[in-house]
């Protein structure tokens, strides 16, 4: 028995089709109302029953910021103009990415009751998690802008472009990684521990706690060009540097000199390459997700 759907006459309910959906991320945005409700639900229930509630999302980065500012600042012995702005502009990127990674990678498993019973675009869960993480960036941007204004921020057009590129870069990579890890986590629960390790690595391999110029002096100027290129090959490193260009260097007394001295060359070109690579990674993550999701229901 074989059904040829192409030769069937038009039917008011449409043609016969495979009920397992194949639309991927496009389906998620087609069902934007459900996405909106899932994001709202996540925001409501994440800190349900906690007296401090949503404030936890800010208490944790605030404590981290204080540690970086006081402790690491003392240890580094490196005089850095507007150190608070430098740390905070990097922290926006790092906090978003690590939060998206942690909650995104667990999102499919956390919604296993739905995944096992109802046919809906499963990409919905990592996408919703990443959107919740993005929501938590808003007050951080407000804080950094207040800090900028108090520090005599003089942004040029390139600063706004850098901020936009940093945001797009980190969103694309955050979504791609969350999508990929959420699918792998269904098969291997070790993934959530791998994410914890990645978080630690990220904190120390981006110029957030320390300024980029230290890497330049310690790695590039000592002839370790290969290591320097590896360091700069991290998408998150580029996002942090772009955010430095947007909020930190324009607040210094001599913004143009600071941008040249404190940041790597070809910053915008590198950022653009990273965005394109991120989009390719997102496509790859979608392909992997689609391949693995066929067995999600039976693996959970």
């Amino acid at each position, binding site marked *: *028995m074989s059904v040829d759907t192409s030769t069937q006459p038009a039917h008011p309910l449409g043609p016969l089709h495979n*009920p397992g959906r194949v639309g991927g991320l496009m389906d998620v945005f087609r069902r934007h109302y459900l996405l909106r409700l899932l994001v709202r639900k996540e925001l409501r229930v994440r800190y349900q029953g906690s007296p401090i509630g949503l404030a936890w999302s800010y208490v944790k980065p605030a404590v981290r910021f204080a540690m970086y500012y006081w402790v690491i600042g003392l240890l580094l012995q490196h005089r850095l103009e507007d150190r608070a702005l430098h740390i905070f502009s990097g922290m926006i990127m790092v906090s978003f990415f690590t939060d998206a990674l942690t909650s995104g990678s667990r999102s499919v498993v956390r919604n296993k009751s739905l995944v096992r019973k109802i046919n*809906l675009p499963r990409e919905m869960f990592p996408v919703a998690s990443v959107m919740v993480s993005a929501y938590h960036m808003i007050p951080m941007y407000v804080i950094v802008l207040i800090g900028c204004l108090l520090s005599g921020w003089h942004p040029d057009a390139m600063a706004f472009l850098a901020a936009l590129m940093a945001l797009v870069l980190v969103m694309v990579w955050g979504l791609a990684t969350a999508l990929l890890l959420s699918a792998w986590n269904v098969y291997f629960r070790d993934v959530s521990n791998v994410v914890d390790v990645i978080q630690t690595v990220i904190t120390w391999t981006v110029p957030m706690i320390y300024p980029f110029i230290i890497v330049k002096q310690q790695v590039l100027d000592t002839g370790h060009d290969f290591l320097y290129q590896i360091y700069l090959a991290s998408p998150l490193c580029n996002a942090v540097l772009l955010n430095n260009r947007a909020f930190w260097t324009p607040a210094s007394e001599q913004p143009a000199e600071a941008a040249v001295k404190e940041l790597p060359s070809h910053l915008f070109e590198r950022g653009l390459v990273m965005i394109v690579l991120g989009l390719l990674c997102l496509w790859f993550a979608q392909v992997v997700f689609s391949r693995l999701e066929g067995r999600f229901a039976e693996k959970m």
Partner: protein
Amino acid sequence: MSASIVVENVTKRFKLANQKTFKKLAVNALKRRPLSNSFTALQDIAFTLEQGEAIGLMGLNGSGKSTLLKLISGVMMPDEGQVLTRGRIAGLIDVGAGLHPDLSGRENIYLNGAILGMTEAEINRKFDAILDFSEMEKFLDTEVRHYSSGMFMRLAFATAVHTDCDIFLIDEVLAVGDQPFRKKCMARIHQLKAEGRTMVFVSHNPKQVLKLCQRGLVLETGKMIYEGSAHGAVETLGYELNLDDDDDD
């Protein structure tokens, strides 16, 4: 009439992984132990259901009924063969899966409706009908965690049966709830059937199957051992029809 569900020589195997961690995977690979075992949950199942037909899917526990429903709903994919459907599908399979305990009844109607594929406008339009069916007006703004299991079920079922779907997959959803509500649910299911919706109905209650379905299909350890009239399916299983049974109809 036209085909609404086509199941073509479908086989489904489950792989049972012997490890859930990289460490166990590596140890098993090094010791050359099998990394997974598999068993066949469904084997070479084939049938076609016309639009507006209702089929009773019967069989003992573990025969593959729920797996077949999940294949038709698209939650799972077959390993061999294919499943084709026409129109929108509502799976009344564990209807409470879409409810969240920390949200109110009202919020859950919207969330569950959206999960089942309804648009915001569709839920707004049907909100009163859903509420009326569930009889939960008094607890509408109470968090669902405070509901009893029966109340939970009412809300979930009321939302599910108000989706504008062409195919309904019903998996023993009437196992809980009080008798008046079960009767109301059966009446709603009969109404949907009368409106021309296609139905796959899983039940161990032969009277319910005979009342709702013209056709029956019996599974036994993943194989289709009967496909024909609903009466024939009940006879194949050797179920006795006790007319004094509470049949919730």
